[in-house]
């Protein structure tokens, strides 16, 4: 099955981003495709390259990057939400791209299931 995932909350502040990641990983392990993860609202902060968690904590941003590299997951950050919150090309982590809200709608159209994580 083809999955789309929506993340509406920032990393470390809310569990949504962890839940979304673990869901994505489990879906891939079960043989499904995670076609796109769309980051909206404060979720755009998942894409900040400037994130530096302490060494004894999980690195949420790097974890997404790795998922994109290993499983060709398309990580899309909403441009309108990102500009509001200071996420731009220059501080975007590897594997993420900034694009329009149409990419979220497209996920709904093209994927068999769209699962949202947020507050």
């Amino acid at each position, binding site marked *: 099955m083809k999955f789309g995932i*929506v993340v*509406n909350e920032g990393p470390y502040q809310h569990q949504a981003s962890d839940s979304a990641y673990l869901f994505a990983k489990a879906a891939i392990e079960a043989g499904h495709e995670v076609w796109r993860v769309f980051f*909206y*609202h404060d979720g755009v902060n998942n894409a900040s390259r400037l994130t530096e968690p302490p060494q004894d904590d999980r690195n949420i941003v790097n974890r997404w990057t790795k998922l994109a590299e290993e499983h060709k997951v398309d990580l899309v950050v909403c441009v*309108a*939400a990102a500009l509001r919150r200071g996420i731009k090309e220059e501080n975007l982590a590897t594997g993420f791209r900034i694009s*329009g*809200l*149409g990419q*979220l*709608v*497209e996920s*709904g*159209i093209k994927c068999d299931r*769209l699962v*949202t994580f*947020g507050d």
Partner: protein
Amino acid sequence: MSDQKKFMFVNRKAPYGTIYALESLEVVLITAAFDQDVSLAFLDDGVYQLKKGMQTKGIETKNFSPTYRALEDYDVEKLYVEKEAMEARGLNEDDFIVGVTVLSRAEMGKLMDEQDVVLSF
């Protein structure tokens, strides 16, 4: 894109206290451009998003409620308000900035069940 799906946007949060209501409206406007079957559902505190007479000068925030009236131009005409939620907030249809269809909780549940994609903000 030729395939049309049934999209429902479920709004359960009040405006201004958080940004969800405004950013949800932004997605709705974009979805309309994809020629999908779009409906909006207002439940719980989401009903407050439609209250007319908002005056936001004092909080130095943009009043986005007039935008609900533009939805018609975007061919988004299915706006549903849950009756129980509306009544629990002391509101009635005349309090809303735009025309809506009031549904009972049971009717709302059934409508949700029929959707292909449900986005909740």
